């Protein structure tokens, strides 16, 4: 048993703006301040601020609402000269022009592409949400960093365009914006959660940190 001479960098988990303690589970890397709604991400230099938004819940709420974190990015995708049949080319251009924003789930899901990642569905359908900023609901922290989210979401967009035309044949110019931390509501049924817009469901067992998320939210609610 020995102590290392040089320790790691230590960051106090407090909102830099309002000094409120940030709710952080053991694997969280980004947080939404429960008081002022600002988002902070841990990087090697300390806490850096990210744009923070939340989605208003559906008007007719029948079940308890649970907010989950997502990384959201502005997308600029442009298909230039292509050597495809006209139909494919138009389809790919249309698809690329339609995607202006993409999302990736920032909470821990066990085998996300197998059980269903709602970020892909949101990127595909581009829901018309009522987006707000500032003080809002309490939301758990993100376990995926913004940089990782950026890499994943770029491939989500490529995959969507690839469904219309082979991206290998396209001269594609894709720009993914800076990460924004969003809190998006879902219905909490206890043993499963349900998306109010797509009606997709996820078993609670697929969410690695769901029990920790609920505990943290209940603690703050009390």
């Amino acid at each position, binding site marked *: *048993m*020995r*102590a*290392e001479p040089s*320790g*790691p*960098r*230590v*960051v*106090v*988990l*407090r909102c830099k703006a309002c000094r409120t*303690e*940030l709710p*952080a*589970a*053991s*694997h*969280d890397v980004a947080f939404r301040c429960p008081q002022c709604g600002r988002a902070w991400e*841990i*990087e*090697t230099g*300390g806490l850096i601020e990210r744009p923070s938004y939340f989605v208003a819940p559906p008007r007719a709420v029948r079940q308890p609402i649970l907010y989950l974190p997502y990384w959201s990015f502005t997308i600029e995708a442009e298909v230039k000269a292509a050597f495809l049949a006209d139909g494919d080319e138009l389809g790919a251009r249309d698809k690329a022009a339609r995607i202006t924003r993409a999302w990736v789930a920032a909470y821990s899901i066990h*085998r*996300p*592409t*197998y059980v269903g990642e709602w970020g892909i569905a949101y990127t595909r359908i581009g829901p018309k949400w009522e987006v707000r900023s500032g003080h809002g609901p309490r939301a758990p922290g993100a376990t*995926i*960093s913004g940089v*990782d*989210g950026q*890499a*994943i979401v*770029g*491939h*989500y967009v*490529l*995959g969507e365009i*690839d469904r219309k035309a*082979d*991206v*290998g*044949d396209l001269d594609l110019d894709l720009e993914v914006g800076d990460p924004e931390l969003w809190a998006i509501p879902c219905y909490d049924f206890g043993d499963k959660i349900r998306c109010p817009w797509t009606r997709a469901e996820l078993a609670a067992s697929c969410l690695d940190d769901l029990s920790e998320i609920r505990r943290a939210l209940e603690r703050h609610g009390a």
Partner: protein
Amino acid sequence: MNELKLYPIKCPQCGAPEVVRRGTRITPCERCGARLCLTEVHTPRYEVTSNLSAAQAAAMARAWMERQGKAGIIGRPELVFMPFHEICGRRVGVFERRVPERHRVYKERYDPSAGGTVVEPTYEYTQKEDTKVMVADVEHMTPAARAPWDLAMFDARAARRIAALRSFDLVEAQRRATVYAEERSPDATAQERFAKKDTEIVAASGRTLFFPFWSIPVQAEAGSYEIVVDGVSGNVIAWRMPETFRIPGLAWAALAVPGALALGQALHATLLGEAVIDPVVLFVVGVVGTVTALFRSNRPDWRIRSWPEAGAIPRFERGEG
């Protein structure tokens, strides 16, 4: 690598000194209560909890020996912790591939019975170049140390699903078990396993899980051997034991008699020239018989056999298909 490393840190808010254990990420300050987060963290380590006691493991081994028709005195089971790396994440990338395609084409053929050409459908097979955008889950579990037994029959992923985890305390674990050290870091494992040209792993998280095994010594007539029981499920995953040969050494020694006779007959035929059988054939038969008899009769009537045997279980190797 297996030492319990402690890191001295200082609370940035109140300046109080703290000591945190390796793998800790978020810890409260004991003086001011602020939540502190360490930006550089080592891989967290967990112990897979075992509900199987030493007596239960010995009973499992005894039941297995009875089923196998083996006899021996079961010794004191020893708990062994073997490290595994669990690496999760998402593999993303864009890569080229060839997709087989089948096209239906119609060909004209002259049909003498119809007195003219007929059109018949047939298929043409081609390969189309395609680009695949990949976003796939990665879940990998691999041993992080060389075990004294083959772990091929141990399903670590199944054991992981049914067992609970708790934080690994090396000092406490070493009091009750033999703990094998990690021979490499999870990063090195991930690099070796997933480093491919077209894809990369993002949102990766690595953990070291210490799985429990019961190593049970068994004393038999031929010697001592070992049965290894999985500490989670209670299954026998490996054994090393003596196995008796069907043909004893004395039977092989009897082969030396016809071998010597054949050699003598060959010598006789060569010297006197009265050959009934070709002397070369006799010589070869004599040498083979004598050498085989001497070789096989001079070994013990049993050998140490281990299970799973090397190569008995096909394994997927990277780069093959």
